[in-house]
C-alpha cells in the first residue's frame, strides 16, 4: 500500500500537497472502495463480537460492570489448569509427531519420487484428510477405537496380538493417545504439503554442488535444505499451535473430554463454561485471555520469521 500511495502522490505539475491534508486520488479512492466490503465483513464478524466479548468479560449477567472479577474467577478455577495441562500434553504429542512425520514424508517424496503423475497422486491423497470435516473424522475414529465393536481391537485380536479388548478411550493415557492419533492422521499431510513445497524452492545447483563434494543425505539436509525450510517450520508451528487450541470436534465425539477430565482440552472446557454452565462472563474472560495469548505468540513467531520486510 505504501508503494501505491507513493505513486499516487506523484505531483502533476502543481504545488505539492501536505501529507494528511491532500484529497484522495481517484485510484486511491477506488482502492479503499474495493477494500470496504472486506473490512466491513471483518468489522461485523470479528471486531463487533470481540468488543462484545470484552464487554461481557467485565460485566455480570445483568450487564453491570464488575471490573476484572470474571478474569479472577476464570483464572482461579482449578478446572482451567486441568484443561491447560491436557492441552499441553496433547500439543506435546501431536506437534512433534506431525512435524517429524510430515518432514519425513516430504523428504522421502522429494528425493525418491520423480514421476509427476505419482507426485500429483500423492498430493491429492495428502489433501484428502484435510478436507474431511472433523466431525466425520471423529465418528470414523470412534468406529475404530470403540469398545465392543471397534475395528482396531478386532484386528489386534484376530492377528493374535492381544487376547482381550484394549480400552483405547477408557484408560487415561490411551484416551489421550487415541484422540492425538486422529489429529496426527488429519494434519500430518498439511505439514507434508508445506514442507514439500518448501523443498521445491531449494536451488538444484546448491544440492548438486554438495553432492559433488560428497555430501551425505543428512549433511545435505542439515546444511542446505533445512536453511530453506526453517521459516516454514515456524509457520507450521504457529498454525498448528493455534489449531491445537481450537481442537474440539473429534475429541468431543470420541471421549467427550473423559475419562474424567483427561482429554478435556481448552476448547472443550470453554464450551462447557459457556454452554453448560452458561457463565458468559467467565467464558468471555477466558476467550479474551486465549486471544491475547495467541496474539503474543503470533508476535513472537513473526519476529522469529526471517521474512523480507519492506
Amino acid at each position: 500500500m505504501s508503494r501505491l500511495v507513493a505513486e499516487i502522490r506523484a505531483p502533476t505539475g502543481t504545488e505539492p500537497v501536505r501529507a494528511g491534508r491532500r484529497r484522495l486520488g481517484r485510484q486511491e479512492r477506488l482502492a479503499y472502495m474495493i477494500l470496504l466490503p472486506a473490512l466491513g465483513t471483518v468489522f461485523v464478524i470479528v471486531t463487533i463480537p470481540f468488543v462484545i466479548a470484552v464487554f461481557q468479560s467485565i460485566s455480570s449477567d445483568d450487564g453491570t460492570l464488575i471490573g476484572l472479577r470474571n478474569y479472577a474467577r476464570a483464572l482461579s478455577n482449578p478446572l482451567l489448569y486441568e484443561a491447560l495441562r491436557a492441552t499441553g500434553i496433547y500439543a506435546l504429542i501431536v506437534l512433534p509427531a506431525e512435524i517429524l512425520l510430515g518432514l519425513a514424508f516430504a523428504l522421502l517424496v522429494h528425493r525418491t519420487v520423480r514421476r509427476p503423475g505419482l507426485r500429483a497422486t500423492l498430493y491429492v491423497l495428502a489433501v484428502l484428510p484435510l478436507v474431511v470435516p472433523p466431525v466425520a473424522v471423529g465418528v470414523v475414529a470412534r468406529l475404530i477405537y470403540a469398545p465392543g465393536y471397534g475395528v482396531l481391537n478386532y484386528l489386534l485380536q484376530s492377528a493374535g496380538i492381544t487376547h482381550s479388548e484394549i480400552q483405547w478411550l477408557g484408560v487415561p493415557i490411551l484416551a489421550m493417545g487415541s484422540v492425538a492419533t486422529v489429529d496426527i492422521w488429519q494434519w500430518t499431510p498439511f505439514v507434508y504439503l508445506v514442507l514439500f513445497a518448501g523443498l521445491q524452492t531449494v536451488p538444484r545447483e546448491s544440492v548438486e554442488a554438495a553432492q559433488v563434494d560428497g555430501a551425505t543425505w543428512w549433511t545435505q539436509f542439515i546444511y542446505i535444505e533445512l536453511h530453506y525450510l526453517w521459516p516454514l517450520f515456524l509457520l507450521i508451528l504457529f498454525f498448528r499451535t493455534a489449531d491445537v487450541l481450537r481442537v474440539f470436534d473429534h475429541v468431543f465425539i470420541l471421549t467427550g473430554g473423559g475419562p474424567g477430565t483427561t482429554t478435556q482440552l481448552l476448547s472443550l472446557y470453554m464450551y462447557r463454561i459457556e454452554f453448560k454452565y452458561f457463565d458468559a462472563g467467565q467464558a468471555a474472560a477466558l476467550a479474551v485471555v486465549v486471544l491475547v495469548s495467541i496474539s503474543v505468540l503470533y508476535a513472537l513467531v513473526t519476529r522469529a520469521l526471517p521474512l523480507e520486510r519492506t
Partner: protein
Amino acid sequence: MQRITRREFVKRTAVTSAAFTSLPAILAACGTSTGTSNKPSKLVIAAVKGNEDAPLKKVAPKYQSETGITMEIVEFPYDQLFEKLVTTFQANGSSYDLCMMDDPWMPKFGTMGALQALDSQFGFQRDSDIPAVVYDVGTWPPPHGPVPPSEQSKSQHLYGITIVGNVEMFMYRKDKSDAPKTWDDVLSNAKKYNAANFYGYVIRGKATNPVSSDSLPILWSFGGNVFDDNWKVQLDSAASIDAVTFLTRTLKTYAEPGAENTDAADRSRLMAIGQAYQSTVWPGEITDIVEDPSVSQVKGKVAYIPIPQGKSGKGLGMMGNWLLGIPKGSKNGSAAADFIKWMLKPDNMRNYVSNGGIPIRKSILNDSSLTAANPYFPALAQSFDAVPNWRPRTDQWNAVETSYGTAMNAAVAGQTSPQAAMQKAAGEIRTLMKNAGYPS
C-alpha cells in the same frame, strides 16, 4: 429516452435492490398471519432430533389437515436444542411458536421467564387421566421439593405439557430369571449370568449427562442425593458414596468393558444383540432398538420394570419427560396452545402411540390391548404411580450435572476412587451454587 446521471443510476439501483431484497421478508411477515390474529398460517416447533420427536413429526400433518395450519418442525440435536433455545429466549426471539424441552431444562427457562403460562393465559386445567407429576414437572416454581432462592416469591404456573412420557426404568432378560426386586438381586443376577461376551450389567457411563442419568436412580434408591431440601450438597454423604461405590466398583465387575464410553445407543445395542443381561433403560430405547424386530435378537425376551429398591427401601425412577411449551416471544400463542390441547386429546394420543409415541394418559398406559406392541407400558404406568424423582429444580442443573457427570465418569473409568470423585464434584458444586446465590 432521457439520459440519467451516474449518481441517479446508482440511487435508483440501490432503491430497486432494497425493494427486491425486502420483498421476501415482507411476504413472509404477511404469511405468518392469515387475516385473523388467532389463526396463523404456520406454527414452528423447535424439536429435538431423534426418537423423541419422530412420532410428533408423524402426527403433525393430521393437525395440519384438520386446521389448515402448516406445522414446521425444526430439529436440533439434544445439546444444540438447549443452546438454541437459551439464546433465542435471551433475545426474546419469535422464531419458534412451540419448543420441545427436556424436563431438567424447565428450571432454567422458568427462571428466565422465557415461556407463556399455559394455565392463566390459555386455560389449561389438570386432567385426572394424566398423572399429577406430569403437570408438576411442567410447573414453575416447582410445587414440591426445594425452590431456588430467586424463585420463592414467584407464583406457580404451568409452562409445559409432557408429550413424551419418559421415565427411566429397568430392563432384564426375562427368559433367564425372575424380576430383580432390589439392587442386591441385580448384583446377584449380574454375578450369576456374567460370562464371556455376555455382560451381567450394562453401565451407561459416558461423561456428563449419560452417566448422570444412569446413576441418579441408584443414588436416590440408596438414600443418597445431590442436594437436601435446603440446597446443601449431599454428594459426599455416606449414602451417596455407598451408591456410587456400588455402581462403579461392585456392579462394574460384571459390566461391559469400556463402560466409561458407553452411551444409550451402545447399551441398547448390547441388549439387542444378546450380549447383556440387564440395565436401566429409557422408553425410547425399547421401541427403537430392543423391541424392534428388524435390529433386535431379543424381542420378547426382555421385561421392563420400575427401578429396583435400594438400601433406602425405595426404588426411585427418574423423570425424563419431554414437554411442549410456548416461548414468550411467540406471536401465535393461542394457536400453539390449541395444538398442545389437540395433542392431549385421547384419540390423538392413541394415534400418537400407534406412531411410536410415549403416552402420558393412564387409560392408554393401562390399556391391555396396547401392551403387546408396547411391553413397557405397564412398567411406565407403575413408575408414574410411584411418583418418580425429577432432577433438582435449579437453573444451575446443567452445570451441576456436568460436574457430577464428569466425576462419575472418572469413577467408572477407575481413574479415581468413588469417594474422591464425589468429594471433587461436591466441592465444585458447592462453589458453583454459592456463586449463584444458593445457601450451599
